[in-house]
């Protein structure tokens, strides 16, 4: 148990400190950084999903005025490490997926680079490829572990017998689509070499994780790699681990000694080079008694990975902790395909993994004739079902009740297809949300007194637009017992002490704990009246509460859905979420995070769908005209609220992380509402109008 920080600034809503720079266009992102006379790189991608590069003709490209160098598998320098196959640019002639980078042109302007890249002729000896994901495959395999190190399969009790004896059962298959992260700011690197040191202005969720990866790839002492990322225009997981363009930008800068190189991916390139969420196929089997108590719960999840690098989405993991059931079983199976490398995206595991089960819960509640809010309440576990650990705090029921009250759920007629208004079927639905309290070890911070009532706090944390510049300074102010205005925070630079990646909603938990420890060290050493120049630091302290407690955030989402009687068009006029996420650091920023997550959930439910064409092996709708993301017109009203939650176990701030939980459960709530509106049960995302014709 931790003594929670006494709050003065925590819980207040100071405005974003980086706001004025962003709205005036003066905030410098990776591609905006001023460097002297940069060159520009543009990538050439494989047009086959599998094969061997047998020849790269660069003569036409080199002949273009302004072309400085061309990198190909034939002559690119060898890298020190090719352990991460995704980063092994030009180290082999093998083509493992369509869109793999097979050459790069470096030129004096962006336009010349792009023009010349189109003139590079790549000969590929094509081999038959396989990009089909389906449960009909006979080569699905069980990975050793799934993401976050979780067990691949789990089993408790006897699900088959329990299911056979249950008066109410469900056995359905649900699918989520292929999604691409698509932050507004494309992945961009500005690279330069100075006396053997590599400097990168990088759009990344973690400057130190980029440093470590690049140091390994190039065989450098990590101290000789400098990564700077003061502002990041969204990442959603796709900037959480380095991708190949960063390596290529550094190789390109080395190919033109003394010249910095800028490399920005095009939107189309982002669909094959920076990760994506694998499609998932989820078979859910549930059995319950007449009172709606689950006797059996099974989730079998199938997803894809690339042949060259395994990524095992932990789709069935949330089913292990969500509801009570004495008999339970989860499995994960993968298909290794000739496809781009999948990676982290917006609540990996929980986001897809709470779709199938939360729709299944709705279906089974309906079958039993029990209200879906009440159905969930009846299956609330006393302890975390699979681990047997008590929860550090669990307020799902409070979220469901508070959400139902705010949404006006009590007046709901449960009959499907019973309400038509002005030519639209109207329905409402609910689903639960959850996300683990993740903490990533390895951060450090320093605090220095820079003058009377002035404190400089340094840590290599990241702000992806989430508000770290503001919220982490709030933590520091309370940890030091000073005013918000007294703190100057410095993040986004490897010149600051090492920080963990901004991922898994772990930022404030990890960096905040570290800053609190540094402040304690500082106050212990220098008291309340330090002198200018006094400095102290600390590493992130351990927290063994996780050995004792299961720590998760929870939420409940309610949706109103309208489906047009004639055309099947689907609209979501109202979304309401109530969350239990521990203490809220900055309500203004927290609301923005939660509303943003729910909006992404709506977008996933109705619109987003990367369409892979198995014949070619790539996503064919690879731009914003065709890959639809919700527009303002699609999102008329989204409300996010939270319940008071005091959790003394998670960390000194009592926070749980809010970056990702907002997207979890939204799609299920919308599907459930669409069923209530129309009587049509959609089990495959996205929920498009053709389901209702």
């Amino acid at each position: 148990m931790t003594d929670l920080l006494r709050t003065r600034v925590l819980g207040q809503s100071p405005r974003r400190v980086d706001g004025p720079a962003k709205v005036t266009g003066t905030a410098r992102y990776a591609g905006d950084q001023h460097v002297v006379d940069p060159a520009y790189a543009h990538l050439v991608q494989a047009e086959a999903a599998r094969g061997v590069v047998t020849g790269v003709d660069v003569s036409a490209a080199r002949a273009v005025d302004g072309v400085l160098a061309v990198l190909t598998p034939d002559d690119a320098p060898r890298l020190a490490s090719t352990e991460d196959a995704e980063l092994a640019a030009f180290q082999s002639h093998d083509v493992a997926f369509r869109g793999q980078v097979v050459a790069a042109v470096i030129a004096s302007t962006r336009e010349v680079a792009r023009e010349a890249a189109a003139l590079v002729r790549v000969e590929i000896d094509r081999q038959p490829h396989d990009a089909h994901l389906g449960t009909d495959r006979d080569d699905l395999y069980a990975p050793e572990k799934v993401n976050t190190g979780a067990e691949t399969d789990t089993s408790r009790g006897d699900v088959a017998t329990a299911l056979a004896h249950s008066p109410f059962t469900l056995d359905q298959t649900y699918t989520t689509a292929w999604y691409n992260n698509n932050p507004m700011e494309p992945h961009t690197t500005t690279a330069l070499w100075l006396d053997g040191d590599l400097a990168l202005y990088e759009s990344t969720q973690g400057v130190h994780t980029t440093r470590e990866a690049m140091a390994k790839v190039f065989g450098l002492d990590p101290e000789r790699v400098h990564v700077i990322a003061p502002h990041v225009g969204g990442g959603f997981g796709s900037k959480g681990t380095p991708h190949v363009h960063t390596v290529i930008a550094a190789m390109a800068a080395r190919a033109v000694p003394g010249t910095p190189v800028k490399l920005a991916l095009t939107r189309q390139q982002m669909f094959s080079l920076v990760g994506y969420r694998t499609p998932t196929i989820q078979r859910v089997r549930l059995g319950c008694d007449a009172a709606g108590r689950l006797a059996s719960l099974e989730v079998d999840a199938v997803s894809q990975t690339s042949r060259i690098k395994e990524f095992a989405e932990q789709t069935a993991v949330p089913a292990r902790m969500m509801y009570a059931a004495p008999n339970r079983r989860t499995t994960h199976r993968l298909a290794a395909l000739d496809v781009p490398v999948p990676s982290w995206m917006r609540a990996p595991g929980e986001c897809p993994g709470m779709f199938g089960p939360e729709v299944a819960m709705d279906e089974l509640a309906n079958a039993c004739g029990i209200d879906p809010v009440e159905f969930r309440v009846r299956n609330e576990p006393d302890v975390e079902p699979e681990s047997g650990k008590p929860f550090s705090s669990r307020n799902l029921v409070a979220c469901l009740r508070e959400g139902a009250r705010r949404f006006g759920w009590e007046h709901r007629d449960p009959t499907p297809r019973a309400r038509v208004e002005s030519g639209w079927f109207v329905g409402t639905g609910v689903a639960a949300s959850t996300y683990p309290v993740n903490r990533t070890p390895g951060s450090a911070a320093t605090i220095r007194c820079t003058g009377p009532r002035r404190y400089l706090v340094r840590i290599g944390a990241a702000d992806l637009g989430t508000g770290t510049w503001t919220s982490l300074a709030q933590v520091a102010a309370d940890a030091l017992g000073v005013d918000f205005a007294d703190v100057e925070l410095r993040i986004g630079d490897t010149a600051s002490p090492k920080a963990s990646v901004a991922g898994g909603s772990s930022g404030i938990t990890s960096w905040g704990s570290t800053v609190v420890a540094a402040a304690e060290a500082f106050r212990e050493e220098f008291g309340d009246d330090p002198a200018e120049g006094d400095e102290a630091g600390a590493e992130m302290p351990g927290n063994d509460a996780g050995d004792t407690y299961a720590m998760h955030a929870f939420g409940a989402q309610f949706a109103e859905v309208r489906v047009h009687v004639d055309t099947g068009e689907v609209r979501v006029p109202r979304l309401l979420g109530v969350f239990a996420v521990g203490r809220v650091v900055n309500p203004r920023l927290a609301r923005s995070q939660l509303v943003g997550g729910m909006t992404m959930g709506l977008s996933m439910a109705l619109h987003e769908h990367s369409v892979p064409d198995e014949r070619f092996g790539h996503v064919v709708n690879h731009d914003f005209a065709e890959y639809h993301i919700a527009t303002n017109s699609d999102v008329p009203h989204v409300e996010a609220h939270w319940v008071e939650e005091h959790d003394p176990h998670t960390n000194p701030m009592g926070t749980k992380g809010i970056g990702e939980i907002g997207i979890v459960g939204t799609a299920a709530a919308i599907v459930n509402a669409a069923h209530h509106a129309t009587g049509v049960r959609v089990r495959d995302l996205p929920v498009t109008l053709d389901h209702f014709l």
Partner: protein
Amino acid sequence: MPFDYRRAPDPEGAVAAATGWPGVAFLAGGTNLVDHMKLGLAAPDVLVDISRLPLDTVAELPDGGLRIGATVRNADLAAHPVVRRDYPVLARALLSGASGQIRNLATTGGNLLQRTRCVYFQDLTTPCNKREPGTGCSAIGGYTRHHAILGASAHCVATHPSDMAVAMAALDAQVAVLGPAGRRVVPLVELHRLPGEEPHRDTVLSPSDLITSVDLPPLPPGTRSQYRKVRDRASFAFALVSVAAVLRVEDGVVRDARIALGGVAHKPWRARRAEDVLLGSPADEEVFRRAIDAELAGAAPLEGNGFKVPLTRNLAVSALRELSREER
């Protein structure tokens, strides 16, 4: 690729500048052409900039019709008081297209000549008969959600993406064209081609033909019109199906019916068979349904876009129902 850029002083000069260059393109709003140049989809040798030509006015004609200059911006046309008053089908079609920013740039002529958004056409790495004749059609057997159910061929199943053109097709618009041989008028419904064996030819125009204006004939008093568009999100998306309907009902009998469909064919699809059923028939739901079914009897959906048949039927009937209700 490097290209020559010329600015024409007048329409005749533009055509003269373009004549004799097979790789010529007229540049107006650039909302489609410039994208295509970036994608490598278009590589004109010569760009003739017509954006400053004096073709940017909307004028009322003596017969009560309207003449729309080729470079009138979509946003301006949608906001024009006469368009809003007399041709609501056109104003609504324009406003349902693209985004505010794009409508501010896009022109009347350019809107008509925009090319299909078929993902395979726009992707240089996949075969496409429209882009490279003889290479094959990747959409057949692929992602067909936005593809044709009417009038397609074994060589191409692409759709024309314009909303404006669908409204104009229903309004019997006439397109004025200036070419090397002089002026001519092409009915809008004959401007775009069906793909047949030459899907690379979108329209009947040659590269040096310049659209100078579009005329809308007057609508008789009592005529109602409207545009209904269905798409995969509430804004900024191309039509899955759209319907432009112009209807005049007198004493419960249909006296004029002009219907054009968008999102279903290689061109704005004038539903003549439906119109034949409607004309002289009672304006009731059964007739509307029979009319559109007559049109859709020729539909040949692809694997993956069969939903467009019931969607078109429901949307067209719904549009006609509303127009006939307004009449009462």
